[in-house]
């Protein structure tokens, strides 16, 4: 059973702290009173494990803190802890996340509401520290819920929401929160930390219920099965992911009630999309140069907007389509790649193309790849992408190419 930490911080107003995205996650984990956390260092995720360790050593959080001998064990340990009723947390980055792959695969079918932080990092080789989204996207087809956060505040709030959604009995699926390496994990910003009292009103204790592995509830978990059972098990996961959409909306609505902040639309942030001719799409901290670029372009009379996806799984197909259908052209900037995919695009562009296929109005869609390995996405990159989108808007036709932004050529 989940054990409640006795020494809760005093109730009251929000505290204002200057903290990084990783520290914001650790604040949320303290407020969520997690039970078991596993750690294995890899940059940039390691900033979270350090921040949690500090919380425990400072007496603000009582939790089992297990340093595993590698990411594979790290994710296995919390999987088991979760099945016996513990609220768990772990995380990794880049090839560390890849090393845990076998454990990441088994978590959704076992319906383990594990919360993981992926400090997004380029995959080796070359060994590099900067952000790329391909690491978290490994699990996009497997039953993991995936969301991307943009600011320290959003990292904190989303972590609380993540437990609420994943631990809902209708869902019971793992959830990975992606935070762009360096840009978010290592940047300190003013963040409002709510009092424990509010969090307790928002987030009930984890109740494993009928799936609790306990002598009083004797069950066997993960027996071998053959082709006569597997498709039914996959269908169960499919249903859980479908149910998650309603649970996400409920959680955000309650979050707004309890904390007095947070978006009305959980799925994505819209910035000046209302009257936009061109809508750019991206995930994570790429929103910053995009927003600034959009403001500058608007000053020149160009109606440009941004749709920043928060949730990638489940994917808010209808809502995304409703917004993007109104544009004259769409430009998706991927901080990832999918070599050999349709139009040699990135993952997000490919997904949005698929989502738009049944739309009544399908504006031209252009795909861009930029910011790989943590390279800056410049204002010039944003202008260039927008100009290409305008050409497509005028001709009414996509150039059916993927443009690489900021590559030396």
């Amino acid at each position: 059973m989940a054990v409640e930490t006795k020494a809760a911080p005093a109730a009251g107003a929000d505290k204002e702290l200057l903290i990084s995205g990783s520290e914001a996650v650790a604040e949320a984990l303290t407020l969520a009173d997690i039970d078991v956390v596993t750690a294995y260092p890899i940059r940039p995720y390691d900033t979270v494990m350090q921040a949690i360790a500090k919380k425990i050593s400072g007496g603000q959080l009582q939790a089992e803190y297990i340093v595993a001998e590698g990411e594979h064990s790290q994710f296995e340990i919390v999987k088991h802890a979760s099945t016996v009723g513990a609220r768990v947390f772990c995380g990794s980055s880049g090839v560390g996340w890849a090393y845990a792959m076998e454990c990441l695969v088994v978590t959704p079918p076992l319906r383990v509401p594990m919360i993981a932080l992926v400090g997004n990092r380029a995959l080796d080789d070359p060994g590099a520290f900067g952000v790329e989204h391909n690491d978290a996207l490994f699990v996009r087809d497997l039953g993991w819920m995936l969301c991307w956060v943009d600011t320290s505040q959003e990292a904190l709030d989303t972590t609380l929401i993540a437990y609420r959604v994943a631990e809902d009995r209708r869902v019971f699926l793992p959830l990975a929160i992606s935070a762009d390496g360096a840009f978010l994990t290592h940047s300190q910003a003013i963040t409002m930390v709510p009092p424990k009292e509010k969090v307790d009103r928002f987030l009930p204790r984890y109740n494993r219920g009928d799936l609790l592995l306990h002598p009083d509830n004797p069950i066997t978990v993960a027996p071998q099965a053959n082709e006569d059972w597997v498709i039914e098990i996959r269908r169960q996961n499919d249903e859980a992911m479908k149910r998650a959409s309603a649970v996400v909306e409920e959680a955000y609505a309650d979050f707004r009630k309890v904390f007095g902040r947070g978006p009305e639309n959980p799925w994505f942030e819209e910035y000046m999309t209302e009257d936009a001719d061109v809508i750019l799409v991206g995930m994570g901290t790429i929103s910053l140069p995009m927003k600034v670029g959009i403001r500058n372009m608007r000053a020149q009379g160009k109606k440009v907007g941004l749709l920043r996806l928060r949730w990638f799984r489940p994917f808010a197909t209808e809502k995304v389509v409703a917004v993007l259908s109104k544009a004259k052209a769409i430009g998706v900037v991927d901080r990832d790649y999918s070599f050999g995919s349709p139009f040699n695009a990135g993952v997000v562009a490919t997904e949005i193309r698929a989502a738009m296929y049944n739309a009544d109005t399908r504006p031209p869609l252009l795909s861009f790849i930029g910011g790989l390995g943590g390279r800056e996405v410049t204002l010039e990159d944003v202008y260039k992408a927008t100009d290409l989108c305008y050409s497509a808007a005028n001709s009414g036709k996509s150039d059916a190419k993927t443009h690489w932004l900021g590559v030396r050529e």
Partner: protein
Amino acid sequence: MSALICEVVYRGIFQKNLAARIVRGIVLSARKADRWGIAFGRYGDSPQRNGIPAKDFAIVADTKEELEQNMARYEPKHVDVTIVVDDTLSKGVESWAWYGLQPINKLTVPNGTVLMTSLQSFDSLLKDIHKKDAPYNLALLRAKASFAGLWVYREDHTEVRILGALAKIAPSFLTLDAVCEAIKESDWGSDLKVASARKAYDRIENRQVAITEGNDEIPFSFEMPKWWEMREGVTIPAIPVGKPKEAGKGYVPERNPYFKKYTTRTMRPVIDFDTCVKCNLCWISCPDSVFDVMPDGTFDAAMEACCGCGVCEAVCPVENCITMVNEQAFSDNNSQWEMWRADKAGYKTWLGAKIADKVTTARSHGFRFRGQYEEELKTELDTGGVEITTGIPGENAAHKSV
């Protein structure tokens, strides 16, 4: 346009190479007449597990297109010939996935053939083989269950005898000459094997079975749950705690209502309750929780859970207390303890007869000299003895007495 579909029902691991040779032999023989074919196993079965009933299939057809038509399913739903290489399987088959008992002749088409290796009589086998709603042929090839061909054992020609017999059953697909040619060409073939195949062609015994004949037991079955009826998280409930046998004494565990092991067994334990010293070793050692504690402290073996592994016999410290005997000697799964309680003297006689019954106890582990098959066949059919090739159960049975 025509096709021949055969299944080979065999015991996992011991007979997997035998079954594979038979289905390959069918395809390669049919190829001699320019037919197309495929040989494959039911993947969900467990050919690598000890004694588990498993299936291989062979389909041969005049054209590639017709072959595809018959392949466009996970496994054939109807077969022209059911080949059974262990007559203990005449009681039926449960796939490794345990969805109930499939009568051995279930997939056999009306007027198709069940071809079985056995030393038993037709009537004896029809006590076990379930009734079928259409007539069919039961063809017997006189041989004991072959464990030859399993790495460490020598050849005993069973695979070529089956192929020779099949040439008699389905001559329009496999002529005897084609079968012999294919045998000779294969890496396990030889002139001696060709001679064995030709003899089997002549010796096969065949009898039509009417719809009135056979075991009228209704085979155990259950419905597969819908996806929304299944517990989530790849979890299954544990078996509940059991109850005393009677009047607060003894202990009988609850058992899985779906998971039965009737046809996994080729042997079953028989117990002498008079000599049992109540040491608990069988109860502790049994991997399938077969032993129920009786009110007097002895242990009864529940046949729905027994896979026939023989651990109980091996650990029992009392000479002649637990003995593994051939499953084929039984036509029910009744409690031995209840039989003993009702009639102790009668039980003693029954027990002695079961232990002494060695007619079909032994398996073939390959031949040590030329002509062994002929000698054994005569000995076994005439006297019910197993003088030459005894398997492990036979060796154990030899010193048993009551």
